[in-house]
Structures are given as C-alpha cells and as structure tokens.
C-alpha cells in the first residue's frame, strides 16, 4: 500500500540530472489536503527554521571551527600590534561568552548590520547592496534565456524521443553539464577576447569611459554577452532534462489519445495539451534551481571580473575578508531559501488538483 511515497520521489529524482537542487521537490512534506493558510504557515515555518540554521551556521563556522578565531583570521597576513588585536577582540565581543556573542550577532543582523569589511573598510551590508544590481542583471538575463531555451528544446526532444534530434540535444546538454562553468568562461575569453578581440575581457563597462544613455547600455550589453553565454550554456541542460522527463511522463496519458481522436493536429496536441501539463512540475523546479545559479555566479563573475556579489565573494575569500564572506554567505542563503518558499507557494497555486483536495 505504501509503495507510493518511495516510487514517487524516485521518479522525481530521475527527472533532474543534478542531485541537489531538484530533489527538494515541493511535494515532500507539505500536508496536501490542508487549507491554503495552513499550508502557507507550514511552509513559512520551514523557511524560517532554515533561515535560523543559516544564521547559526554563519555564526559558528566562523568562530568555533579550528583556526577560526576571528581576531586572528581578520588580521591574517597583516602587520598588527598586540593592542590592535585586543581592540578587535573587544570589538567582536570575544571577551564575552559565546552565547552572548551569538545574541549580539543576531541583534546586529536584525538591524541589517553585517559587520565591517577589512578590505574595503566599509560596512558589509552597503557593499552587498552595491553589488546586488549587477548580479541580478547577470543571473536574471542568464536564467531567462536558459529557461526559455531549455524548456523549448526539452519538449521538442521528448516529443520526438529516440530521434536524432533528441539524441543530439540530450547529448549536448549532458556534455555542457559536465563542463566546469569557469573553464567554459575561460574558453570563451580565449576565443572571443584573446584571439578575435570581439568582446571585452572583463568588467561591466569600459574602464575610463563616461558614456551615458544609449551608448552606456550598449557598452554594458557588450560586456554582458560572454558571461551570460557561459552561464546559459552550463545551466540550460537541467531545464532541458527536467522538461524532457516531464513531457515523457505526460505522453502516455489518456487525454492525449482523446485529443488526437477528436482530430487535433500533432503540433496542437503538443502545444495545447501535453506542454501545459508538463510545465507544472517544471515551473517550481525553476525556483529550486536558484542555488545552482548562485554557484555559477561566483565562478562566472570571477572569470569575467563582473562587479557583482559573486566577485565580491571571490575577493572576500582570497583576502581573506571573513566578515564579508560571512555576509555574502548569509545573503546568498537567504535569497535561495526565499526562492524555495516561492516555489512551494507556486506549486500549490498552479496545481488545481491540490487546491481542490
């Protein structure tokens, strides 16, 4: 009788080619038959617990792990006097108990105070706010393109399963999936910036130029091209595979036979009947994959010196600038948890069967 939960989850795991992201299917722990407010409350509770765990992890991994004394870490590789270290210890409240320190950290966090960066000598939250825009521009553009491309190719491939088109598409996607993001970026740099000088090697705008208006937008687009292409190439594979699996799932459904029986053209059967139903599980997965996008942002921004949060993370880890790293960790994780929450809500809203239950 209860073979269902197991096989259901397995089928879903198969749908995605990566293990982490998609596995967090929204169907897992939610009470299906419950009312909407209760459902939202349960999901919001889960998200809040995850947020709390991020804060705890963010605090303790920088403090109690071996070699993580902040006063030492913060000054690593710098000439500092003993008095300076003492001042730092006091500033971080290291002379207080760990619990007291933790509550101070949480209090600071709630007021938006993430500490002060050593490299930039500026508050971490203002730095992050500054870099958020470029990251959203890069990942947003890349996500839009890869989702459109992946979903379109995925449903075409599934519809003609086993054809050369299907084999070519899944083969290409799997190959790109095996490519480290940063290496693909390096290759594009090598070919388009190093050999043919078609695109700039890095940054968001040409250094020293003070263009405005349309020229500025063109310049930014010019800089945006290579990073976006890199991200799209690596990321679209997962959308393709998920969509393909999802359409395959629908293809044996009875309603398609009905649609064909009433004389619909094959193309209409696909676009009007199969695809909308297949989109349902896919849409929520899009939000669940945000974590992967963020991982990609770190390496892509590093390769192309794109002035966003990912590049900020890279400067923070190479300095090392631990308050900054701690800040980006908390912010990245918060974004991902919120997106996950959105996915849960969307799943419920989009599937009428769940609403009726």
């Amino acid at each position, binding site marked *: 009788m209860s073979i269902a939960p197991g096989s259901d989850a397995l089928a879903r795991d*198969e749908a995605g080619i990566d293990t982490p992201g998609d596995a967090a299917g929204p169907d897992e722990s939610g009470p299906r038959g419950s009312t909407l407010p209760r459902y939202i409350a349960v999901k919001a509770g889960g998200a809040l617990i995850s947020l709390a765990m991020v804060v705890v992890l*963010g605090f303790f*991994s920088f403090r109690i*792990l071996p070699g993580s004394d902040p006063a030492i870490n913060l000054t690593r590789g710098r000439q500092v006097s003993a008095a300076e270290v003492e001042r730092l210890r006091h500033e971080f409240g290291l002379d207080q108990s760990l619990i007291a320190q933790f509550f101070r950290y949480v209090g600071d966090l709630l007021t938006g105070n993430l500490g002060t960066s050593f490299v930039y000598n500026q508050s971490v939250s203002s730095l992050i706010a500054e870099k958020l825009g470029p990251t959203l521009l890069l990942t947003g553009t890349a996500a839009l393109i890869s989702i459109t491309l992946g979903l379109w190719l995925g449903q075409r491939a599934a519809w003609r399963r086993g054809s050369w088109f299907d084999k070519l598409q899944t083969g290409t996607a799997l190959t790109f999936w*095996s490519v480290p993001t940063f*290496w693909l970026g390096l290759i594009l740099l090598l070919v388009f910036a190093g050999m043919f000088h078609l695109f700039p090697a890095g940054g968001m705008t040409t250094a020293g130029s003070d263009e405005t208006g349309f020229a500025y937008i063109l310049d930014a687009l010019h800089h945006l091209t290579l990073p976006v292409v890199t991200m799209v190439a690596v990321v679209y594979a997962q959308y393709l595979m998920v969509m393909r699996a999802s359409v395959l799932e629908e293809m044996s459904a009875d309603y398609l036979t009905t649609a064909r029986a009433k004389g619909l053209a094959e193309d209409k059967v696909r676009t009007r009947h199969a695809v909308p139903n297949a989109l349902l599980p896919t849409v929520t997965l899009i939000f669940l994959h945000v974590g992967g996008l963020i991982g990609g942002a770190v390496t892509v921004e590093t390769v192309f010196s794109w002035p966003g949060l990912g590049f900020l993370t890279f400067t923070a880890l190479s300095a090392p600038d*631990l308050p900054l790293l701690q800040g980006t960790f908390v912010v990245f994780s918060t974004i991902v948890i919120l997106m996950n929450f959105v996915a849960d809500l969307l799943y419920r809203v989009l599937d009428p069967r769940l609403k009726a239950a």
Partner: protein
Amino acid sequence: MSVDSRPTSGRQAVAARRRAAALHVWREFVRTRSGVVGLVLLVVIIVIAILAPVLVPAESLDVTQITAPTNHPPMPGYPLGTDPQGRSVLGMLIWGARVSLLVGFAATAVSMVIGTSMGMAAGHFTGTSRAVIMRVIDFFLVIPGLVLAIVLSSVLSRGVWTIIIAIGVTSWAGTARVVRAQTLTIESRPYIERAKALGAGDRHLLVRHVLPAVLPLVLANTTLTVGSAVIAESTLSFLGLGDPTQISWGSMLKTALDTGAATAGYWWYVLPPGLAIVVVVLCFTLVGRALESVLNPTLRRR
C-alpha cells in the same frame, strides 16, 4: 560431502544470492554500450594517475630545475607546450589527475556515508527525530552548496582534506533523499513486519535488512556524485582554496586566469585541464546512468 555445491548455512545462502545478483547486474551493465565505454576510459585514466610518478618524474616539474622556455606552444618533448613557469603541461595534467580523482572519490565517500545514514534514519524513525532529520536534509538540499563549501574551506586550514570535507559535507542531501524514499519502500514490505514481530530492534532492521536493500541505489548515486565532486574540487581549486603545494586541474586553470593565459591566447594551457575534467565527469555520468538504468527497472522502459 554430498552437499558441497549447496550452501550449508543461512549466511552462506544469503552470500550466494548476493553474488548471483551482483553477477546479474554486471551482465546487464556490460550490455549498455555507453556505460562500458565510460568504465574502460575511467580505468585507463586511473591507471595513468597511479603511474604518474613513473611516467613523469617529479623532478621534471620542479620549478628550480627547469630549462624549457615559459608559455611555449607544443614542441618536441613537450606535446602540450609549457606553463608560465616552463613546466610541461602534459606532465602537470597527469599529476593533476591524482588530486582530482582522490578528492572526487574521498569526498564522495564522505557524502555517501552521511547521505546513507541520514536517509535511512529519516525513513526509519518516526515522530520528532524524523522531523528534525528531515529539516536538516531539507536545509542542506536548499543551501547553495558551493557557497557553503567556500565558507568551510576558507575557515579551515588549506589542504586536500579540507576540500574533501567541504565537498562531502555539502553534497550528501540528494543521496539522503533517494535513500529515504527507498527505505520507506523497503520497510513497507512484509518481511520487515515479520522481522519486527520476531523482535528485531532498530539496529538489526537497519543494518541487516534496509542497508543491503538501499546499497545498489547508493552505488548508482555514488558514480554520479564522483563526477560532481570532481567539478566541485576544480572549482574550489580554481578559486584558490586548494592545497597550494599540489598540482590539480583546477589550480592549473587558476594559474591560467591569474597569468592572463586566456586573453593572451595560450590555448595549450587553457584547453587540456578543462577537457580532462569534462572527460572524467562524462565517464562517471555515463557509468552512473547505465548503473541506474540497470538497478532501477522503472527507468528501463524509457
């Protein structure tokens, strides 16, 4: 003895049955062409990595004893050219395979042990402990793994083991989910009920009945995870979090970025390490998918 060929005890019977099952899986696996191609390539790469000290003497990569020109394109004696310090790129590639594969396998082992035990616990226990374990699994599923791995390897001291731990600790949640699902399926079967009726405890149930049943799935998952662990290793090394004293494919690409090899057009230094990563990851993916389709009959009809 007349019963020579037949098992003489229950334990032997079980062992014989498992051997037969393993043989069956192997036969099915050999039939998948892509899986065999991946496996053969992997064995070749692993043998080369093990033989690295014989094939490429360590002295030839010692920066202080190098006579070759730096950043030189492929030439006789240096089939893949030289790096910014005049070392043979081919030699570094062979040595780099050691770190990449070691981290790939070790991190996967860590990840599998955590994932399997957490998954089995989440499927077996009920009530509060189940809720707590599920929350932890969900948390690690959601959190951006790379960022957490960056945090861990920045805080801990630099080295191969730090990277292994950082990758292992951040990549087990997917496995835990698959194992949990399988545990639920297994535990709903009558023989578990029988074992319970005979007084089997949690430990006995999990170790003697559930673990053997989930292991095949874990095996398929393992090969897929090694591939992503190899990518994760190269990414962390590329970001400068690797062991600075060891050559890995990721650290080669880091040098390429730092010295501007890409924008200078030194293709012989940029292409090989990445291609090596792609080939290894692709092999693991092929083997993993083939194993998965053999072990999980529901996928076979696709």
